[in-house]
């Protein structure tokens, strides 16, 4: 087990969110969309220029940019 930032996750890698370190509008948006501590996510893929990233979360797809993903810490299995 190891904690990394969401940006560094590889395609098809799975992990559990351990922290969302951002307040204000962006933080609220991220959390409203369901990215909260304890949520299991899988990286579904990245856009052609490597950004944004598409996540599978609870059977649905969410996308966000790398600089937004930086605020999200994920625990992944090695």
């Amino acid at each position, binding site marked *: 087990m190891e904690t990394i930032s969401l940006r560094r996750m590889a395609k098809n890698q799975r992990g559990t969110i351990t922290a969302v370190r951002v307040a204000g509008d962006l933080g609220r948006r991220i959390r409203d969309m369901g990215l909260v501590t304890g949520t299991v996510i899988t990286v579904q893929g990245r856009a052609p*220029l490597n950004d944004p990233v598409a996540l599978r979360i609870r059977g*649905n797809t969410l996308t966000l940019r790398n600089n937004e993903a930086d605020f999200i810490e994920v625990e992944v299995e090695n």
Partner: protein
Amino acid sequence: MNKLTMALAGNPNAGKTTLFNALTGARQHVGNYPGVTVERKEGAYQRGDFNAVVVDLPGTYSLTAYSEEEVVARDFLANEKPAVVINIVDAANLERNLYLTCQLLELKIPLVVALNMMDVASDRGMEIDVENLSAFLGVPVLPIVARSGKGLDELMAAAQEMAEGRLSPPDPAKVRISYGDDVDQALLTMTRLIRDQGLLKGKYPSRWIAVKIIENDEALIKEVNEDSLELGIRLLQEADIVAAHLMKTFDTYPEAVIADHRYGFIKGILKRGIITHRYDENRLYTSDKIDRVLTNRFAGPLIMLAVLYSIYQITFSFSTLPVAGVEAVFGWIGGLVEANLGDGPLKSMLVSGVIGGVGGVLGFVPLIMLMFFCIAILEDSGYLARVAFMMDRVFRMFGLHGSSVMAFIVSGGIAGGCAVPGVMATRTLRSPKERMATLLTVPFMNCGAKVPILALLIGAFFAQHQAFYMFGFTILSWIVALVAAKLLRLTVLRGEPTPFVMELPPYRFPTFNGLMIHTWERTWQYIKKAGTVILAISILLWAMMTYPGLSPEKEAVFVQERDRIATLYEVGNETGDKLLQEVDNQQEGAVLRNSFAGRIGVGMEKVTWLSGFEWRTNIALLGGFAAKEVIISTLGTAYSMGETDPEDAGSLGDRLAADSAWSPLVAMSALIFMLFYAPCFVTVVCIAREAGSWNWAFFSIIYSTTIAFILSTGVYQVGRILGF
């Protein structure tokens, strides 16, 4: 009797508008991407002898509003106190959707939950225990399929009962969400303060206010301070204490704690056997499999290009015949008028002004319809959201947003669109600055009206490399638009990029009805504009190019010339007819030069000589401001060709190629100017409406004309130095 209000609230893309249309028979816009509805819409609903007003609200993920249209939803719920709120919940995305439901429950408004998309859920092998969910939430929960109308009766029966007060609103004791010891403690203190002083009484429940203050909801805090600044400060102090404590002990924010607990509450409910998955929960759904290909890093962009290109292909190849048909009809009407009316101003106005102007625009209706139909398919299937996803990075480099892409494509990004719907498509953009930047640059695209201009001038001057030039000008328009956007974002529209946290909805089969509504709705707007604005401008332009006419002495010169030819040749002699035609053309030219428009054109030469344009071109450019289609018909008139059909401009091309005022260099400079100068009048009106002020519309005219002038002058002058 005062009608009861029923509000439809829920997450974006949950199916609110679909339900609204089903209930009221309205034909509001439905699309498979989040954020289609941006303003509230009302409709009448009747069920037996029960009458109500149904209000469709923009989607919102949370009651702490994030973007402008979310504020609309929240304000409506808080201020207008609907008799019942029908919370539309996407059954296939239950956990996320219930997040808003939790907040609605805390708001203690009369609530009925409509569990929509039950068909999708069961396709995915999910079974939902509706009765137990209802018991845990303490409100009625009714399964529906809004698209087919299944379950609507039961839903509306429950909603009516709730609206008439025969069912009790949510029981606060039942749904009190615990936010952890620290927050709960603070909430207790704050709630007591709020209740004792009657802060915002009757508007919001006390505990809800306390929660929002701890969540740092700016809009609500402002409202609180307006009611009682003293208490507001006191409450914020309490909130700061918990915030500091949480940061110290748990290294986290209060709003994070609250969100975590809300999701915890939902998970707690769902865990108790509410959802059963028939298949493996992590199985890829059809939609995910499609995405593996369509948004693949390598295949994705290629497929996107192919899709966009085929739209272009389809619209142009399938619309050639109908467009010719419509034009034939106008030609026939024109012929009738020509034959049956005596010569005079009325006839001239009808033929050149009304039929020529409006007919030219209406001729494009079949093309526009087909294009909108193709775009509707992209929109309803969910592909559009993927295009935004793939293009976001590129657009962000230029200060735009992934969601700007569609506006560009609608406006003619692949050549052959229209900036009017393009400008309207910018509504999906959340940030006002990014939206303005998109709004101001989409008119640079090659809309359907610019395509014939390109075809004409490229055909006349660069005939050997037509495809190459066509492609080159398309690329050029993208470059100019993106660079202009970047410049705007660095100057008048400076600001941070906005987040791109967006959901990609599952692919869905578009419904026939939905496609028809989209296509017709947009086409009708286009037709309406042709019948109003374009009609008025065509008549105005006709008048400006006709009056004040020639002085009697000058007129006499032409009459003499005709008489002279008549004496030389018999009636019906070919050479004689040709010469007579030539005299008519010359007379038209003289009338034009002496007309108001002609004088303006000559006056403009003082500036436009820099770009190489002479007065007749200037008139066409003036006309093109009304509608770009007018450029060709005006050039036709101005270069003594009489009536010129915009579609069949070959002979006009020959004329221009032979005219001493034109050269390949002038054509190049003129093309650049025509592609980039002021958006047409209809677009400008739309920009004013969408931007909310005429200042931006004027700005748009001035800055794009400036860019066009600088570019064309640069090309012309450098070209001359290089000896072209």
